[in-house]
């Protein structure tokens, strides 16, 4: 008797709205946070993978305090010390920072591009800059798409007008598709880092030596931090794991709030409808029929709220992509996530409605009739 359930819901729009609100919020939260954390995870891992599995990454330790740069720079000559170390095949300085907070910006010399898997990369349009170019920039195709950039277009970085000379299409290597690359010297110049680098990438002669080299750097250079790509992936995994936990936590909290909201509003609605339910029982509705009636109301509400929640979640993801992620469509609502959240919402609302439905089915018909 879906028509009767639907009628009951539309007769009491405010009550229906309040009952549904929790599910809308829960689904919107789960979908948006879920896809954002999945998108972040993919982005961080792609970016790291791009450095190759066998590298040691050296950075300067972040010094605490106001005004300390997020990514501290150091003298590029230190590379020579690393090169001289036992077991080191090669070491290169690069500039790596973030443009607009989240887009990786990399300054690298032509000879070093192999370190970042950039040597043989395909271009969608145009090609590489030269080391001594002073106004050239190459961007990944995702960034180009987000910014609607073509070769020959202008891109302003640190108040300097640069010209896009190439757009990279790295296929599956998504890290490259969403970065900005500059000639090494130009990056130093733009960022006021003459003679400085932010990262040194070290390639060991033999991958089995990577850990030993890392330990040695940690011992000998107190101000520096050394990590293998493996370490960084693990650390990124931890951070992403934490974000995932927060997502789950928020999901659980919003679910609880939604469930409690449903239970409270439905119980009060059932108290209000005591007379109606009693009459129904008096004229022959079984407990089963009443329960089904209430559960159907909950089902209808959850389907509508599920759709609303997905739409809101989808919009939130869009907002995050366009602000935090500089327009790149990194956080994506996958069909599996959307379907999962939708079904979860339906389940949550039906489970929450079980007790109110049971209570409704016990309504005493005589009470309704006597009044």
């Amino acid at each position, binding site marked *: 008797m879906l028509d009767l359930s639907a009628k009951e819901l539309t007769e009491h729009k405010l009550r229906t709205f309040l009952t549904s609100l929790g599910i809308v919020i829960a689904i919107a939260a789960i979908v948006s946070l879920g896809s954002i954390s999945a998108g972040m995870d993919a982005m961080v891992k792609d970016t790291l993978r791009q450095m190759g599995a066998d590298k040691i990454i050296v950075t300067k330790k972040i010094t605490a305090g106001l005004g300390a740069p997020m990514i501290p720079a150091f003298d590029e000559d230190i590379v020579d010390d690393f090169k001289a170390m036992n077991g080191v095949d090669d070491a290169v300085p690069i500039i790596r920072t973030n443009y607009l907070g989240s887009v990786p910006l990399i300054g690298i010399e032509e000879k070093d591009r192999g370190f970042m898997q950039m040597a043989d990369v395909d271009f969608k349009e145009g090609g590489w800059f030269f080391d001594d170019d002073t106004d050239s920039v190459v961007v990944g195709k995702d960034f180009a798409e987000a910014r609607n950039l073509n070769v020959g277009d202008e891109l302003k970085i640190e108040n300097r007008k640069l010209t896009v000379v190439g757009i990279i299409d790295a296929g599956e290597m998504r890290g490259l598709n969403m970065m900005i690359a500059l000639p090494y010297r130009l990056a130093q110049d733009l960022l006021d880092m003459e003679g400085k680098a932010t990262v040194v990438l070290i390639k060991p002669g033999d991958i089995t030596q990577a850990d030993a080299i890392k330990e040695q750097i940690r011992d000998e250079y107190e101000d520096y931090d050394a990590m293998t790509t493996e370490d960084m992936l693990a650390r990124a995994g931890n951070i992403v794991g934490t974000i995932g936990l927060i997502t789950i936590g928020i999901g659980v909290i919003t679910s609880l709030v939604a469930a409690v909201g449903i239970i409270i509003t439905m119980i009060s609605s059932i108290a209000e409808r005591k007379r*109606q339910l009693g009459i129904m029982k008096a004229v022959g509705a079984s407990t089963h029929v009443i329960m089904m009636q209430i559960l159907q109301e909950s089902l209808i509400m959850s389907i509508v709220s599920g759709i609303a929640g997905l739409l809101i979640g989808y919009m939130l993801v869009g907002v995050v992509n366009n602000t935090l992620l500089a327009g790149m469509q990194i956080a994506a609502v996958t069909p599996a996530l959307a379907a999962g959240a939708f079904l979860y919402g339906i389940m949550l609302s039906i489970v929450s409605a079980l007790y109110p439905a049971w209570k409704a089915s016990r309504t005493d018909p005589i009470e309704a009739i006597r009044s």
Partner: protein
Amino acid sequence: MAKRAVFKLEKITKQYRMGEDVVTNALCGIDIEIENGEYVAIIGPSGSGKSTLMHIMGCLDSPTKGRVFIEGIDVSKMKDNELAVVRREKLGFVFQAYNLVNTLTAVENVALPMRFAGVGRGEAVRRARELLKKVGLTDRMGHKPNQLSGGQQQRVAIARSLINDPDIILADEPTGNLDTKSGQEIVELLESLNRKMGKTIVVVTHHLGLAQRADRRIYIKDGKVEREERKASRKRRR
């Protein structure tokens, strides 16, 4: 029509317990037999237990002691859901306060018990329309209870009581909230259900006209049957 007992009440008592020792004896040993096709009026002062008796006969409540047979079946020990089936299939109810569902239209209200029996909307609504026509509400089918007069609401309730074609109609003061004219219409409608459709009718009433038209009048006082009167013309044959 062959006479057979549609109701048989054996030593029915009903006690309401309020708190530890406060006990109200609403019914104290009622024996009543009602035959198929009878038109019975139950009369008595306020608080004498008439409604309590009707609720027990109507399977809305169970007696504290005693047994109730409806068409030969003992319903006094039935479970809630079994009682719901009896209410739906064997009995029709008409109440003083009409007891329609406010959010539903006349047609939907009438169709309700049929839908509880598992019949689809289309079929139930079709039958509900027929019944509303019979009770003279052809032009009020889509009205909600608050758009209908008391008399009209009561006619909707009577149509509802007929939807599953029960043999028995129980009415508890059906004219109690109505003015003389619409009360009279309801009285005639109930009588025609008995005379034309052969329904067994048990009606609690203060309405003199209604009581006088009944085949039998059962007077209740203090939870007991005080006396009975029969109309000579339709006297029960034994």
